[in-house]
C-alpha cells in the first residue's frame, strides 16, 4: 500500500493503478468521456484531468499511475474551469440539435455538459458536415455527432476483434469510418451494435423502425403479430428507470397488445424448437453424420462474422435458423393456416435485444415461400420508446399471457438469452434424447457466468462430450482458432456475438447516468432475471414443452424431417469482404 493525498486528505491505496482507479475506489468520481474500464486507455478526451503537485501540466487521471506521496487535486476552481473549457470545446464542433436527437436525455455528452456546469456558450466552432451512412441494415453512422472518443473503434477491435472501424484522415478532418470509407453494409461490420452501446452520443444508432411500425399498427387490413426475445424482458425495465434485473415478461405482453398487436408470441417457444432441432442435429453429427465440433448458429452477428471471417468453418455450424427466424417461418405458415389467413396479410414483428437481427431478417436465405419471414425487427430501445410514446404505463399495467400456439416455453428456452444458455438447454435435451434417462442436475454451472471462454465436459452413455462457450466475437476468435488447429478439441461449441450473450445485445437500453455500458454487474442481474424465470417454471426442458410436441405432431412431423428442413434450417456461404483477425501485438 502507498499513501496518496486527494484534495489534501491522505489515503492508503494499492500501487500499480491509475489515479482514476484509485479515486473511483475512494468515492471520487472524476468526470470522464473516452475512458471505458473494459477498453484500452486512449487518453484522447482530456476530460478526466486532475492536478498533481509538482507536474507542469494537468494529467489525464485515466492514464497516469499513482505513486507514493502523490498530491492530487480533483476539484479545484482551476481544474473545474479547465475541464469545463475542454467539454465546451468538444461541444463547439458538435451539432447543437439535442432536442431532435435520438439520444436526447440519454446522452453522455449532454450529461457531462450539465455536470460541468456549462450554462452559457462562449465559442462557436466549425461544424462538421458529413453524409450519414444509412447503408447498413442495422447501424446508422453519423460522423457529425462523433466526438472522436474512439470507444467504438476500441470495442470493435479489442472486444469484438472485427476491426470494422478505424480513424481516417487527421486533425479536424478525422472521421471514424470503415476501410476506404466504404458503405457500412459493404464492410466487415457484423452489425452487432456494440458501437452503439458504447457511443456517448448518437454517432452510432440503430436503424429505427418505430414510425413505420406505428403506421402499420394502424393498418386494419394487416394481422399484426409480435414475438419477444428472452433478453428484452430482462432489460427493458432499465429504460423505465428500474434497477437492472427485474423481468417484465407479462407487462410487455400486455403492452404489445395495447400497442395494437393482434397476437403476441414468445421467441422462447421457438428457442425450445431450436433445441429440438439442434440437439437432434448434434446427436446425428455425434454419431458420425456430419462435422464436429458443431457450432451454434443463433446469433446473427456471429452468422455474418462466420461468413466473412471463418468461411472454412461453415460446415461446422448448425444449419438451424435462429429462434427468431424459426418463429417467423412458422407464423407465416403453420400459424397462418391455423387462423385461415393469407400469410401476405400478416405483419411479423420481432422485438429483439439485437441490432444484427435487423440484418438477419433481410437475409435472402431465410425467405419463406418467397416472403420475407420477419417483416420488421425493433430493438429493446425502440420498443421502450414506442411504449412511452404511446402513453402506456408499462410498470403499472396488468400483466397478460402469451398467445398460443407459439407462446408457451420451457425454462430452457428462457435461458437462451444468457451466454451458455443455448448450450445448457441443448444439453438438457440431448442427454435425454440420447440416453432416454432424465438428467437430474440441469443447472450446468461450468458454462454459466461471464468468463470469456467457458469449457465443460459431460458423459453421455459412457462417452465424453467436450463443450465450450464463448461470448463476444473476440472470445469466439480464441475458440475458433483453437478449432482450426485442433478440430478434435471440442464436440459442441456455443458462440454469441455480444458480451454476456443476448442480454448484452447491441439493442439493449443505454447505460444510465450511474452506470457504464457493458457493466458486468448489470449483465449479471439481467442474466439472473432469466435464470429466475427458468427456476420458477415447472417445465424446464425443451422436449417437454407440450406446444412444441403438438407442433411436431400436427405440422412438422419429426426433428430434422422434411418440413423442418424446409422451414427451420438454412445455409451459409463465404462472403466478401473477408475479415482479418490480427494476431496479438507481440514485442520480440
Amino acid at each position: 500500500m502507498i499513501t496518496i493525498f486527494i484534495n489534501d486528505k491522505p489515503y492508503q491505496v494499492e500501487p500499480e493503478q491509475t489515479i482514476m482507479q484509485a479515486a473511483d475506489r475512494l468515492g471520487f468520481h472524476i468526470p470522464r468521456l473516452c475512458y471505458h474500464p473494459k477498453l484500452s486507455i486512449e487518453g484522447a478526451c482530456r476530460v478526466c484531468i486532475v492536478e498533481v503537485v509538482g507536474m507542469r501540466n494537468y494529467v489525464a487521471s485515466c492514464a497516469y499511475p499513482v505513486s507514493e506521496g502523490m498530491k492530487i487535486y480533483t476539484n479545484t476552481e482551476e481544474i473545474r474551469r479547465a475541464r469545463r473549457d475542454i467539454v465546451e470545446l468538444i461541444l463547439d464542433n458538435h451539432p447543437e440539435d439535442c432536442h431532435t436527437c435520438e439520444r436526447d436525455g440519454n446522452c453522455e455528452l449532454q450529461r457531462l455538459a450539465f455536470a460541468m456546469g456549462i450554462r452559457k456558450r462562449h465559442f462557436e466552432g466549425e461544424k462538421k458536415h458529413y453524409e450519414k451512412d444509412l447503408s447498413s441494415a442495422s447501424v446508422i453512422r453519423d460522423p457529425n455527432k462523433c466526438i472522436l472518443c474512439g470507444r467504438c473503434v476500441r470495442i470493435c477491435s479489442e472486444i469484438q476483434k472485427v476491426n470494422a472501424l478505424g480513424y481516417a484522415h487527421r486533425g479536424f478532418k478525422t472521421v471514424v469510418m470503415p476501410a476506404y470509407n466504404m458503405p457500412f453494409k459493404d464492410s466487415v461490420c457484423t452489425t452487432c451494435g456494440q458501437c452503439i452501446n458504447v457511443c456517448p452520443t448518437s454517432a452510432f444508432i440503430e436503424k429505427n423502425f418505430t414510425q413505420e411500425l406505428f403506421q402499420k399498427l394502424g393498418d386494419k387490413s394487416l394481422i399484426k403479430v409480435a414475438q419477444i426475445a428472452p433478453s428484452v424482458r430482462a432489460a427493458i425495465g432499465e429504460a423505465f428507470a428500474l434497477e437492472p434485473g427485474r423481468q417484465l415478461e407479462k407487462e410487455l405482453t400486455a403492452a404489445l397488445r395495447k400497442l395494437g398487436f393482434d397476437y403476441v408470441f414468445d421467441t422462447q417457444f421457438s428457442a425450445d424448437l431450436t433445441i429440438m432441432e439442434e440437439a437432434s442435429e448434434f446427436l446425428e453429427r455425434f454419431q458420425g453424420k456430419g462435422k464436429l465440433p458443431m457450432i451454434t448458429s443463433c446469433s446473427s452477428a456471429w452468422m455474418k462474422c462466420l461468413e466473412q471471417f471463418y468461411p472454412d468453418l461453415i460446415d461446422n455450424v448448425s444449419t438451424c435458423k435462429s429462434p427468431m427466424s424459426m418463429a417467423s417461418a412458422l407464423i407465416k405458415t403453420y400459424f397462418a393456416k391455423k387462423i385461415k389467413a393469407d400469410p401476405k396479410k400478416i405483419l411479423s414483428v420481432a422485438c429483439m435485444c439485437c441490432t444484427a437481427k435487423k440484418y438477419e431478417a433481410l437475409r435472402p436465405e431465410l425467405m419463406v415461400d418467397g416472403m420475407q419471414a420477419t417483416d420488421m425487427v425493433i430493438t429493446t430501445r425502440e420498443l421502450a420508446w414506442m411504449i412511452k410514446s404511446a402513453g402506456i404505463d408499462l410498470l403499472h399495467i396488468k400483466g397478460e399471457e402469451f398467445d398460443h400456439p407459439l407462446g408457451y416455453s420451457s425454462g430452457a428456452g428462457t435461458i437462451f438469452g444468457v451466454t451458455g444458455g443455448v448450450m445448457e438447454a441443448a444439453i438438457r435435451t440431448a442427454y435425454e434424447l440420447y440416453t432416454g434417462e432424465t438428467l437430474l442436475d440441469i443447472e450446468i454451472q461450468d458454462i454459466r457466468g461471464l468468463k470469456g471462454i467457458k469449457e465443460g465436459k459431460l458423459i453421455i452413455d459412457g462417452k465424453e462430450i467436450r463443450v465450450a462457450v464463448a461470448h463476444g466475437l473476440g472470445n469466439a476468435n480464441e475458440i475458433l482458432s483453437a478449432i482450426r488447429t485442433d478440430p478434435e478439441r471440442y464436440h459442441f461449441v456455443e458462440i454469441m456475438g455480444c458480451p454476456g450473450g443476448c442480454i448484452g445485445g447491441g439493442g439493449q437500453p443505454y447505460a444510465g447516468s450511474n452506470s457504464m455500458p457493458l457493466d458486468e454487474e448489470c449483465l449479471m442481474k439481467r442474466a439472473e432475471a432469466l435464470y429466475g424465470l427458468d427456476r420458477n417454471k415447472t417445465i424446464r426442458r425443451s422436449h417437454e414443452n407440450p406446444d412444441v410436441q403438438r407442433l411436431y405432431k400436427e405440422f412438422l412431423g419429426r426433428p430434422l424431417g422434411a418440413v423442418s428442413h424446409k422451414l427451420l434450417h438454412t445455409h451459409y456461404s463465404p462472403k466478401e469482404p473477408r475479415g482479418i483477425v490480427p494476431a496479438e501485438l507481440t514485442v520480440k
Partner: protein
Amino acid sequence: MATAEDKNINALKSFMQESKTKDHPDSQLISILHKAQELYGYISQEVMNEISKEMNIPTAHIWGVATFYHYFNLKPKGKHSISVCLGTACYVKGAEEILNTIREELKIDFGQTSEDNFFTLQEARCLGACGLAPVIMIDDKIYGSLTPKKVVEIIKSYKK
C-alpha cells in the same frame, strides 16, 4: 512473360516477406506503404487489400494510416507533377496569382489530377530558389520569374 503488374505485386510481396522477418513486423506498415507507392505511384484499394492479407492487418487500420499521412497518394498521379511554391518569397512575388492561373487552366486543385491524367498539382513550401520567385517545379525542373502568361505557355509546352 510477367506483366508490369505482376512484377510490381511480386516485388511488394517479397518486400512484405522481408518485413515479416524484422523485429516488429506489425510496425512495418508505413515502410510497406512507402514501397507500394514507390512501385505503383499511388496506393490503391487492391494494394491495401493485398497488404492486409499478407501482413494480417485489418484494412480499416491500413486505411487510417494511409489517409493520415499526406505523403501517400490514394489516387493515381498524373504523368507530370506541378509543385507550386507558396513560400514567403514566392508568395510576396505573386505565387497566388500563378496558382490561380494553373487552377483555372487545368481545372484542378491541390492534390488533384487533371482529367487527362497529365498533371497532378501539389503545394510546396520553398524550393530553395527564392531569387527566381515566383517559381514552380514540374517534375524535377524549376521554372522561375513567372507570370500568369508564362505559366500557361509552359503548361502548353508539356502537352505538345
